[in-house]
Structures are given as C-alpha cells and as structure tokens.
C-alpha cells in the first residue's frame, strides 16, 4: 500500500481527466496478481525501480476476469497512457484485437507473441526459459548425490513444461542416468499460489530420493523451498533471485529478467522500438543467480560446467529443445 | 376447595396473527388437583392458548396467574420455572438418546453428566412406581413405542417438578390400550394433587376423564361446564355451533361384482423388515371394507402398495386384470389408469403439495390428463375453474383456489383431497385416516361423501385407527395385526372390545384383567421389535 501511494499518490485523482497529457506508462498484470512473489512481482519491481531512478510514475491494474484484458488495454490506451505493458502470454490475443484501434499507443506483451507484420505498434518480449532452465539443470545434476532430482511446476501449462523440459535436458547432459521427477501443482490458477501443496509435493519427491528440487511455481514455490530447507536438501528458485530466502539451502535461482524488460520498456517511453525481442542467455534475459548466499554450494567444477554450457548454447553448439516448439520433450514425459 | 386459589387463571387473553384473531378475550380458571379438558375444532385456538401459557407466544392482552400470583411467561424456561410442563402432540425427544438422557436434557446439574444421570435414574424409578410410568431408563427413544415415548415426555415434565401438566391431543397416536393406560397415569397424577389440562377433540375422552371442560370455538371460549353435568351431544353442539349428527346415516350395502382382489400380498420395507406378511381379501362394488388396527401393523404399507407408492409381491387383480406390483407400471399413474383413487393417510406429506395453491392441488396426480394440457403448456385457467367448482361442491372454506394448501385448516385440506379423488369416479377408492386432525363438522361431511361414493357403486377400502369410524362406515371389517389379517367381522355383530382384542393380536376371550394382559403382550412385541431393530 505505502509503495503504491508513494508513486501514484496525487497523480491518481488527475488521471481520469488529464490522463492524456501525462503519457505515463501503464502496466497490466496477469490474473495472478501484483504480489505473486514471482513473475508479476518482478514486473512491478522493474517498474518501481524505473520510477525511483527517473522520478517517473506509472499506472497499473490487477485484473479480475478474462474480459477485463481487452477492457484494460482499451481504457488505458484511451486515457493516453503509453506504452501499455502487459505481463503474461494470455495478452497476445487481446492485444492483437485492440492494437489496430490505437495506432499511436505502443503495446508490450511479455511472454506473449503478436505478429509484428500485422501489428506494427506491438513489442513482443519472449524469454528463452528453456536455456536458463538447462543451466540450473546442469547445476542440479552435478549437485545431486542420489542421482534423482525433482521439478515442481505451478499450473500445468505449456510454459511450465518448457521450464521442466529445459531443466531435464540440463540434468541429463551431466548425468545421463539421472532420474527427473516432475510434478505439477494443479490445473487451475490456484496452483500458482498453493505453498502447502508445494510443500507436500516436495516431501513426496524427497521420499522418492530427490535431493535437488527446482520450483517453477510462483507462490507455490515458497513452500517447496521451505520444505527443501527443512529437510536439508537443495532447492532452486525461479524468476527472481530467491537465493536469500534460505541462505545455504537454495542452490541457485533461474533468473528471468522481467524486471529489466519492464524497466527498459518504460525508459524507452513513446519511442519504444516494436517488433519481437527474444531474450535468451546471450542477451542476459535469463541466467543463473550466484551470490553470497549460495557461493559455498557452487563448486569450481560447477561454475566451469555452467559457463561452458552457456557458451555452447550462445554459440549454437548446444541446442536446447524448446517444448513449445512442437509440444514434446525428448528428456521428459508429462 | 372454593377458598383455594386456582392453579391457573387466565384473564382476558387475546392474541392475533395479522388479521386472524386466534384468541379473543379468553378467561379460564383451573382448580388444583383436577383434570380440565379443553375441547374445540381444529383452528379454534386451543393450541395458541396453550402456547401462550407455555411461553411460545406472547399474548397481545391479558394476564396469567399461577397459584394466585400474577406471572409473566416470556419463554418456556419461565413456564418450567412456574411449574408448568407440556407434552406436545409431536414429541420433542432426541431419537438416538436414551430415556434418561432425554429426561435430563436441559436440566443437567453441572458440566459432568454422571451425577445427573444417576440422580435422574433414581427419580425415574420412584416416579415409575408412583404413577405406573414404567419405561426402561436405558432404552433408546427410537426403539420405544409411541406410547412409551409419550411417557418419557410426561417423565420429563415431572422431573422438572411440574405441578401443572398440559397434554396436547395425547391419544391421537395411541392404541385403545395405551390410551387407557395413559388415563390411569393421569388419574394417579390427579390423585397426587397435580393439575392437568387435556387438549383434545375427542368427546369420549373428555367424558371419560375430565372434571371440568371448556369449549372453544373460533378463538373464543364458548362455555366452561362440569363434565358430570353435560353430554357429548351438548359439547358437540357447543363446539360446532349447530346440532351435529354423531352417528353416520347409511343404507345397508348392496355388494356387486368383485372389484379388487388381493392374494397373499407381502411387503418388505427398505430396512428389510417384513411389514405385510401375506394378506388376502377382496372388495366388491358398493361395499366399504374397513381395516382396523393399531398404527404400524402393516395397514399403511398395504395402502401404499395398492396406491402405487411402494412395491410388494403377491397377486392383485383389479376388475379382473392383474396389476403390476413392481417396476415401472406399479407407480401411482398406473394405479390411477386402473381406476384406483387414493386419499392417503398423510395429506400433508402425500395428498397435497402444501405450497401449491388449491387449484394446483385439485389436479395433483391427474395433471397428465389431456384435458389439462394444450400443447406444451398446462391449461391453468381451466384448472382454476375446475378448482372453483370442486371447492363449491365440497364446501371448502375459504373458497379461494389461489390460496396455498397450507393455509387451509386440516378439514378443508382433506376436503380438497376428497374432492379430487372422489370426483374422478374411481372404481376403487383407497381412504387412509380420512378424519385425522379434522374437526367434527367436517368429519360428518367427509363420512357422507364416502358413503355416497359407495352408494354410486364404487368399492372403498378404508383404513383408520379410529375404531368409531371403522364401526360407523364399514360394511365389513378386517383387523390387521403384525402384517396379517386377524379376521373379518360384521360391524353389526361385533363390538369395540372384540375388535380391540384382535387389534392386539389376541383371538378369543381373555380371562382376568384383559387390558393388563394386552399391555404385557404389547410390551413383548415391542421388546421383539427393539431386538429386531438392534439386529438390523
């Protein structure tokens, strides 16, 4: 609350009448909500950082229903907000529907894809999550003593399978005999925010021998990381750097720099370059988090292996399979 | 005696529900150590008056004096504190508690149950000896007969130190033997100086046991007289406001061809208990066969199978054609097509949809008749017209077809059911408890209609727990006991005593104190049933 008040304060009252003159950027979160400790929150943090550093302000909204996607896009565009940034793949279609009606407004979809030919005022930002997941997979494969590692996904959607698939490939790359246990928390959006279920899944995987667990599950992952720390095994965080949550117990975090993408888009403002941007290892859009909290856990061998794998991927020597390219995964069955 | 303050004195009690004046300026004095009867038709305001006395309703006007002291009774706790106990028509017992648990319920001494229970057990024992109120204190309520459950209600009141006992229609659910036992209990209570108010609509009970009787009609107290100085005819007239025929006038029957023939019918309920254990009889055109029996001896199940509500085994032919006893063609619709009309025992649960208007109820069960259909829709206007006619012909009051069934009195509800079933001109009419909860004025009318249908050539199967009614209406009487027919009797050649014995499963004469013998027999049967229930 205090944060919001700080940035929005007085501007809020005026926005209705005088929105057009301000040309503030707008941020629309996906249904998960602003404070999901993960993806949307990373976007919010990026926007906040931009506002703090540049003294700017932005408007944002948390959606309640599917129909509000288009509504929010239109209302913000009509109010003259620019650019209008959205998080989550679900915005691709709504943006494609409205973009043509507001040619002067720039729309950004993070994780979504809108045809740049048809909609020249849209920027699609995609992350190569499979590459980042591959790297943490490599680390997990090396850190595991039992040869069994776990993956806890949030809602069972293609994006999360993409995480799981990249991870499994990384694990198999360093230990071809390793077992990867993958579980999804659920099939409804509630799966993004169910730490208790996350904890249960982690326990189940531990009982099957897993000693490293990668949680790509939003708020649910908090429960996974907690249980892993309690049971004295290693875990891997996602999206933001979550190493600090349990120092010495979180092997690493798979970073997805949504915050950077949002801050960059806001900084560019109305002059935002549109098209399609894919942020992978080469662009530092994804990566692994190494800091004081996990320095002891990461051996020299591990660092070397990760660096090597990263270089190979960037150079194109290693091809990490993207689950969403053909809806299948060579290293893991769902 | 006259110097003594009355146990209860009500002065000028009035109570209205909306526009309905349920009690109008009622004053009454009940002397201690007497049994005071309150008699009146349904809806006369008896229950309202007692509810005021027991704290369920607050009177709009008027005062209550208990033993000469003015007393406010805002709730039932206050009534209990004032020494008033009430035995409701529908018992308020916890079915899966034991007797002693029910007795202490709400009157526990502390947080721990054990002391209360042992105290209650002791006091139950002494009460049982004193008043012939014997019940096994550890039996579960659901295993007890209705008569015993009622004793538990009385025990509950006495355990709470009640000096004044109100009984609302206590014999409605009892066998003659049980009713007799109840009256002996009441006698004992009176002898101990307790005051009893007995609410009933049965003149015989009033004459048999009360000292004084007050008559209520349409919310007013029309008279209070000494029982010894009045007669049933006078009381009936006071209740109804006009002269009432207490006997049914009917010509001798002229039975024709066999309409219904039942052979070796057996019915088993969902719990696997055999309710009807092989019953055979036939009914002819223009004949009323009355089935007497204590409630729960298979009559209801017999009616349900004939009416298509329950399933059974055996052979039933109707007008020479066999009718199905199980499967799709055994439902109420199939029965109606076969020419069977059914006035069910429980009009509120079965015969009527209480939330439906009278008009919707007059086609209930016959709503599929093409004459009420036009295309997909029902011909509501025609149905309302039909209802209007039926209500006039059967003198249903108020004659408003749109009024919901629940807003009619019991007698008028029954008339709606009768109008519907009788005017179908059935070959066979099944009638269960036609006058239960119906006031005297309507009883007369209902009886006449049933006889009129017989005289038109229909066969009638009558089930009633009221022996008077069976005797008055039937051309032949069958007595059911324990799922079997004990025998057939000609009403002209039998009497209540003989039938009563058959109803208790006893054939022939009993030496000595026969009612006691019957009591013992009934108790044996109950114990058996309790065992059976325990096994199941």
């Amino acid at each position: 609350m205090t944060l919001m008040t700080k940035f929005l304060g007085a501007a809020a009252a005026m926005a209705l009448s005088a929105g057009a003159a301000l040309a503030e950027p707008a941020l629309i979160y996906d249904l998960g909500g602003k404070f999901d400790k993960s993806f949307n929150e990373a976007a919010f943090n990026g926007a906040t950082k931009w506002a703090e550093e540049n003294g700017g302000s932005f408007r944002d909204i948390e959606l309640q229903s599917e129909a509000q996607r288009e509504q929010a896009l239109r209302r913000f565009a009509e109010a003259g907000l620019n650019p209008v940034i959205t998080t989550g793949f679900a915005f691709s279609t709504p943006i494609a529907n409205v973009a043509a009606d507001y040619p002067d407004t720039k729309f950004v979809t993070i994780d979504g894809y809108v045809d740049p030919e048809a909609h020249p005022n849209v920027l699609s930002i995609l992350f190569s999550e499979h590459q980042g997941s591959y790297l943490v997979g490599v680390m997990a494969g090396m850190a595991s003593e039992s040869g069994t590692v776990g993956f806890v996904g949030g809602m069972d959607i293609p994006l999360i399978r993409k995480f799981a698939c990249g991870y499994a490939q990384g694990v198999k790359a360093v230990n071809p005999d390793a077992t990867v246990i993958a579980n999804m928390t659920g099939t409804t959006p509630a799966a993004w925010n169910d730490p208790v279920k996350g904890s249960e899944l982690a326990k189940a995987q531990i009982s099957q021998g897993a000693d490293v667990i990668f949680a790509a599950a939003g708020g649910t992952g908090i429960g996974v990381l907690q249980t892993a720390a309690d049971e004295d095994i290693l875990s891997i965080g996602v999206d933001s750097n979550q190493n600090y949550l349990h120092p010495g117990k979180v092997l690493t975090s798979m970073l997805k720099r949504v915050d950077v993408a949002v801050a960059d888009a806001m900084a560019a403002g109305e002059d935002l370059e549109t098209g399609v941007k894919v942020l992978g290892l080469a662009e530092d859009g994804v990566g692994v988090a190494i800091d004081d909290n996990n320095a002891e856990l990461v051996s020299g061998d591990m660092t070397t292996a990760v660096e090597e794998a990263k270089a190979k991927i960037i150079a194109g020597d290693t091809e990490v399979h993207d689950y969403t390219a053909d809806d299948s995964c060579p290293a893991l069955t769902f | 005696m006259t110097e003594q303050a009355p146990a209860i004195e009500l002065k000028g009690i009035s109570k209205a529900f909306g526009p309905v004046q349920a009690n109008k300026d009622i004053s009454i004095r009940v002397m201690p150590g007497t049994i005071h009867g309150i008699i009146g038709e349904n809806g006369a305001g008896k229950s309202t008056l007692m509810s005021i006395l027991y704290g369920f309703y607050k009177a709009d006007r008027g005062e209550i004096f208990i033993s000469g002291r003015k007393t406010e009774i805002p709730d039932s706790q206050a009534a209990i504190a004032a020494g008033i106990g009430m035995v409701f028509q529908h018992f308020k017992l916890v079915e899966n508690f034991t007797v002693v648990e029910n007795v202490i319920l709400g009157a526990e001494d502390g947080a721990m149950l054990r002391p209360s229970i042992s105290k209650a057990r002791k006091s139950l024992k002494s009460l049982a000896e004193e008043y012939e109120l014997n019940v096994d204190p550890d039996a579960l309520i659901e295993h007890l007969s209705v008569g015993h459950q009622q004793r538990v209600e009385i025990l509950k009141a006495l355990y709470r130190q009640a000096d004044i006992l109100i009984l609302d229609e206590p014999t409605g659910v009892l066998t003659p033997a049980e009713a007799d036992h109840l009256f002996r209990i009441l006698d004992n209570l009176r002898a101990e100086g307790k005051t009893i108010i007995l609410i009933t609509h049965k003149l015989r009970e009033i004459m048999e046991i009360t000292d004084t009787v007050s008559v209520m009609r349409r919310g007013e107290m029309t008279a209070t007289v000494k029982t010894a100085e009045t007669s049933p005819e006078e009381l009936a007239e006071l209740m109804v406001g006009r002269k009432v025929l207490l006997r049914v006038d009917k010509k001798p029957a002229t039975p024709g061809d066999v309409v219904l023939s039942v052979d070796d019918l057996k019915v088993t309920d969902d719990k696997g208990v055999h309710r009807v254990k092989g019953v055979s009889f036939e009914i002819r055109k223009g004949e009323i066969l009355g089935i007497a029996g204590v409630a729960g001896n298979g009559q209801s199940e017999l009616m349900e199978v004939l009416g298509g509500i329950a399933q059974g085994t055996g052979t039933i032919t109707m007008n020479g054609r066999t009718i199905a006893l199980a499967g799709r063609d055994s439902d109420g619709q199939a029965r109606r097509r076969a020419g069977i009309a059914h006035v069910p025992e429980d009009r509120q649960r079965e015969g009527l949809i209480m939330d439906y208007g009278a008009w919707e109820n007059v086609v209930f069960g016959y709503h599929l008749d093409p004459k009420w259909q036009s295309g997909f829709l029902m011909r509501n206007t025609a149905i309302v017209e039909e209802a209007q006619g039926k209500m006039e012909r059967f003198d249903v009051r108020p004659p408003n077809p749109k009024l919901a069934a629940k807003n009619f009195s019991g007698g008028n509800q029954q008339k709606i059911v009768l109008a519907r079933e009788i005017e179908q001109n059935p070959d066979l009419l099944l009638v269960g408890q036609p006058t239960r909860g119906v006031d005297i004025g309507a009883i007369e009318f209902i009886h006449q209609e049933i006889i009129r249908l017989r005289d038109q050539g229909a066969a009638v199967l009558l089930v009633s727990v009221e022996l008077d009614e069976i005797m008055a209406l039937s051309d032949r009487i069958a007595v059911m006991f324990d799922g079997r027919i004990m025998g057939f009797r000609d009403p002209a050649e039998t009497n209540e005593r003989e039938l009563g014995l058959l109803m208790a499963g006893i054939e022939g004469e009993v030496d000595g104190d026969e009612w006691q013998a019957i009591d013992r027999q009934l108790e044996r049967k109950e114990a058996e049933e309790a065992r059976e229930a325990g096994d199941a």
Partner: protein
Amino acid sequence: MERMPAWADVVLIPLISLLLAAILSALVILAIGENPVEAFNLMVEGALMRSAGWGYTLYYATNFIFTGLAVAVAFHARMFNIGGEGQAMLGGLGVALVSLYIPWPHWSLALLGSCVGAALFGAAWAFIPAYLQAKRGSHIVITTIMFNFIAAALLNYVLVSLLKPVGAMDPASANFPAATHLPTFQDMFATAENPLFRGAPANVTFFIALAACLFVWLLIWRTRLGYEIRAQGFSESAAKYAGISPARIIIIAMLISGALAGMMGVNTAQGEAERLVLNSTEGAGFIGIAVALMGRNHPLGVLLAAILFGFLYQGGAELALWTNIPRELIVVIQALVILFTGALDNMVRMPLERIFMALNRKGA
C-alpha cells in the same frame, strides 16, 4: 397467514440488503483512505453512464443469467446445483468443438449449433451427479462441487494437450473461424456518427439469455414438467404418491440446469474471446448461486440480480482502473453484496416482518 405483503418480500428486502451492503462497503473504502462517494460515482459512471460500460455490464449479466437460471431450475426440484462452474466449463468446450470443427456458413447457424453443443455438454456434465443422486443417493452438493474440479482438470488436459495450436503458449484453443464470430452490441447498434458499445464484449448471446429467462418461466410455471419439478421440490413423498418418479425429475431438472449453465460458454467463448481459454468461467457458476438466491429463483428476479452483479463486476473493474483500491477489496465489496442479499436474507426479513405485523395490528 400472510406476514408481509408480497411487494415487500420482492422489492423491499433486496433494497434494504443492498443498502446495508453499500454502507458497509463505504466504511471499508473509508478505512483504506479513499472517498466512497467518488468510488461509487466511478462505478456508476463507468458501468452505467457509458454505452461501453453497459456493454460490459450486460456481458457479465449474460453469464450470470445463465448460471443463475441453472441454479434456480435445479432449486425448484430442491437440488442444490453448485456445479454450475464445471458445467459452464464443459459448455465452453462444447462451443469450442462445434465452432472449430464444423464449417459454419453463417454466424446465426453457428450460434444455433454452439447453443446445442454448449447445452449438451453442460447437461452431460450435470447428468453424472444427477444420476448418482437419483439412483445412489450421493449428495448432489458434494458431487457437483467435486465435478467442478474434475471439469477444471479435464478442460486443462483438453486445452493443453489436444486443442492448443502447436507452438502457442497460451492454454487456449485456436481462434474460432470468422464465420462463427457473433455480432456484438457494437456491430448491432453502433453507427458511424454514433459509435455505441465500442469494444464492449456484450453480444447477441444476451438475447439468448433473455429468451432463456422466458423459457424457464414457461417451463416452471406453465408446463406439466415444471409442475412436476416443483411438486418434487416441495415434497418428494407427495410426488411419489402422485406417480411422479423422483429419480426422473431429479435427472431432468439437473439436465436442464446443466444445459443452462453450459450455455454460458456461448457468451464467453464464442461471444467474447472467440476462442476457448482455460479460465473462461471465472467463478460465474458460483455467482449464479447468489443471483438465484437474490432473484428468489424467479427468472425475472434472476435477470435483475444478474444485471446488478454485472454492474458490480464492471464497476469493480473501473475502480481497479482508476483508483488505488486494491483488487482484494473490490472482491470484498462484491462479497458483501452477496452476503447481504443471499446469506443474510433473514437478518433483514425478520425485523421487517415484525414491523409489518405491528403495522397490521395497528391497522386492525
């Protein structure tokens, strides 16, 4: 013995309930330091004063009419169908299959086809709990709510593994072919000089919902099936006596209920998104319970209550857009209305009855 005139029951009680909910909501808004009057203005302005606002209000209302009617029909048979959510999900699936795999020449035919598809799928989903209740006595409340979860899992599987176009991120079906796109209010009512309902999702399905109201009214109060459904609802023992098979009525009422809930899918999938998304029902199945409760299970009441809830949804969106009232509090405000109009009915009714009885006594 009428305690209260009918108009008071139908009009006064909901109004007082709404007022109470509004007062409490105002207090909530005050407590977080916002101006309740402004917030209310914003809701009215955004939901009712602009044609596009109406377009959203009526879009939501269309959903709630279908699910509200579904609950109401089942309730007339004393079945508490809280599986509207799952039935609507399956209805959406029916719409998707019909729209994707049948080459429709024109939207009007496609609409007919998808209505049938939605109704069939919704009814099929309601059939299993209905059968279990009718033949096995499994409690309908338990089974229908469990079927919501099963529906969510099924839909997820179908979308993620079968219907999702290869390479797409979103667990949603492909876009429906253009021939199936339904005319929106904008298409129907907007002219060049007067651009009404711009971008709003309300579409021709709204009129189907109105027709459904009429259908339910006729069904319940004018047909013999409705007569039997109500009879069964009021008293199963009496229904048996009349030769009405309780099992048959339970199943039929639930099939109709499921079909109505399923038809919500036409509005969300075909009318709005023009594809099937995973989260298309968004709790409308549950809102339907509140709508039916508030509408006293009467189609007219359901219609009015649905529009009210549509207003709350659209007004809530406006609040989220232009104020700092967090989303959670908007949900609280919506919940307060449900609480007061649905669950706390008696809290208003009892005192009101007493007042009317006192008035009557004085009058008499």
